[in-house]
């Protein structure tokens, strides 16, 4: 059976199954039980599991993260939810100094099985403080697992694996992924953390992408294929730990790396991929690795800025073409014309969001 559900629904279903599986799982976050239910991802949970396990919280991101940590130390399995990842900066101390370190600084006597869901915004003028992707800051810290699934089936399986994991996991959702659809099995299953996935096999170039850039990379690969270029698209899925072996196997095979990251360039994850390729696959490289990222400036609110700011499938296709000595083309020639403005994922997705 090929059941198609949305990424957002996949998260809701995973949470529901996790809560049914263990009464130690609870969900906390600003807006979790409100009428909008974190873009629908927590819909119906409070009615089903009660307000002791599904609840709103004071606007105290730092302390409430510590509260989740403490409860995890005595057996609970908290899922903390933030509608925007930007608010995690208020909780940096608890995440970095406590959650990430507890296991090693106390010599493995206890760990912190905490899952923090954080959503990266984009479009409709979300602006400088509502559309940052701060993944690299967190992935820099030993002891944190940072995952960013791109496909609905992975969103479900990786959320389940994250809650089953004994370590703190930052689960990053791109807002534009919530409305994407894909096949998602009905039953409960774990998708292993720390593993990348080839989502489109190819031989000429490895487009290694994170989060929403996987969607753009798949569109680009389709367009490139029409031109006889077989791009392999690797969905990173896990920012930390990085699946070095899986990703490098692809890079060695194609000899070309295009690192596509839905975050800033400098000090970011795309640079980490390039560094790994140079360190580990230097002799197999047939061209210099390249990075496609957000520019090193803050997201402007204006709809005009979105077109400048966010790389798209066209950007990727052109960079790949350039790498292979082929001419640059416009969106129409690539057959990659979007039917929605650059600050909107598609016409059905209507602001404000």
């Amino acid at each position: 059976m090929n059941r198609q559900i949305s990424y957002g629904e996949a998260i809701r279903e995973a949470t529901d199954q996790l809560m049914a599986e263990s009464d130690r799982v609870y969900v906390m976050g600003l807006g979790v039980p409100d009428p909008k239910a974190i873009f629908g991802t927590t819909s119906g949970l409070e009615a089903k599991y009660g307000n002791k396990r599904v609840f709103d919280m004071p606007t105290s991101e730092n302390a409430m993260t510590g509260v989740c940590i403490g409860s995890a130390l005595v057996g609970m399995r908290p899922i903390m939810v933030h509608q925007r990842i930007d608010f995690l900066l208020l909780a940096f101390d608890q995440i970095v100094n406590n959650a990430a370190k507890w296991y090693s600084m106390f010599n493995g006597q206890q760990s912190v099985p905490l899952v923090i869901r954080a959503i990266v915004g984009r479009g409709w003028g979300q602006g400088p403080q509502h559309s940052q992707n701060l993944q690299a800051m967190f992935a820099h810290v030993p002891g944190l697992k940072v995952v960013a699934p791109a496909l609905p089936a992975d969103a479900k399986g990786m959320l389940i694996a994250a809650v089953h994991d004994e370590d703190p996991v930052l689960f990053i959702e791109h807002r534009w992924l919530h409305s994407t659809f894909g096949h998602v099995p009905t039953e409960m299953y774990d998708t292993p953390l720390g593993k990348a996935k080839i989502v489109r096999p190819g031989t000429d170039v490895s487009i290694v992408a994170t989060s929403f850039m996987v969607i753009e990379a798949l569109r680009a690969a389709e367009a490139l294929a029409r031109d006889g270029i077989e791009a392999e698209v690797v969905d990173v899925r896990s920012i930390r730990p990085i699946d070095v072996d899986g990703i490098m196997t692809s890079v060695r095979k194609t000899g070309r790396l295009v690192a596509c990251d839905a975050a800033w360039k400098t000090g970011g994850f795309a640079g980490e991929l390039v560094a790994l390729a140079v360190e580990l696959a230097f002799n197999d490289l047939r061209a210099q690795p390249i990075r496609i990222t957000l520019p090193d400036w803050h997201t402007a609110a204006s709809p005009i800025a979105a077109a400048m700011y966010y790389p798209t499938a066209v950007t990727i296709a052109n960079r790949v073409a350039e790498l292979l000595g082929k001419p640059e083309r416009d969106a129409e020639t690539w057959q990659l014309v979007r039917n929605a403005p650059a600050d909107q994922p598609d016409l059905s997705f209507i602001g404000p969001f």
Partner: protein
Amino acid sequence: MLHHPKAVCGYGNRISSNAAQSAFEKVRIRYVRRIGDEAAAPPGFAFCIEYERESPQSMARQKYADDQAEKLADGLGQIRSTESPGISLYRAMARIRAIEERIAARYPEQEMRCPVHLSIGQEAIAVGISAALEPGDYVFSTHRSHAHYLAKGGDLRRFIAEIYGRAAGCCGGHGGSMHLVDLSVNMLGSTPIVGNIVPVATGVAFGSWLRNRNDVTVVYLGDGATEEGAFLESINFAALKSLPIVYVIENNFFSVYSPLDVRQPRERDAIGIARSHGIAGARGDGNDAEQVYSLAQVAVAKARSGAGPYVLELETYRWREHCGSAYDNDLGYRSVDEYEAWRARDPIATLEQRLVDAGALDARQIEDMTTEFAREIDDAFTFAHASPFPNDSEFGKVFATTVAGR
């Protein structure tokens, strides 16, 4: 034939009912009165084990019975038969002082290669609070954690081994003196980022609340931590959910070398802040162990009853430098007069005088205690020195669940 009824009392202890049962079966002790039995526990003790032993076949067997009972109730070497609460508080404080004086004496050897934040002068708070706790209650602490750890029953050998960086340390040499932990006595950890343990402790209390348990969590924090948002955020949530937690503010008037008056307006009142959240609170003399103990009993009982959190603010004074073993009055950040005034309020000397005056303590007993502490401390330092450093393979483990990738 039964004779020699005997009581073994203690506090802050690791005894569990299962352990008690099996050990007592071996020596055919007739009954155990459980922790919290007020009729059995004399004032000042969290529990009392009372037993009668059969007329023994041999003196050896009788001795075994006594040893087992004491060993059970002990864990720290601070258990004494039918000891008055005052003596127990005194003993626990004097023991901690002796341990830290030894650390101070040996710190200049440069073999304890980590910061030490000595509690010398501040022992009454840890001891008075722990005396009001049951073994299942949780404690969290700060950078100045030695007294809190020891008073809750944290293992001495593993503590000393930790500050020597050894594998046998309570954190296997990964934590140092600012990360003391002993899960066997529910001393769940300490951290040196000001205020950052407070939310974690609140979360443990929340865990108790979620699981319908009434274990009380105590978190120690300093006057500086009350300035942190983490503290204010935590008490707000604790009040919202009526969590079983006691916030113990040790106000020693300095955050490192920064006095209160450069950090807080004169009108600021931590208990008032608590009250404005609907939280009960009290202020007391943090250098009077008996007063701390009686305040703690009220606070802990209230938290345990489900009536919500409690905030205690206890004034005290750090004698030695903020970090390290020396005295630092030469730095000029506080006056010698102020320092001497607080030295005159030494919590140990104060209680000692009170007990001696009441005829409850004499020079001989004090000498015996001193000898006993020295023996225990010698043993711990010998143990620490003899312990190996961690192997290379013991470093670098950051995940409890191993997954692919790096």
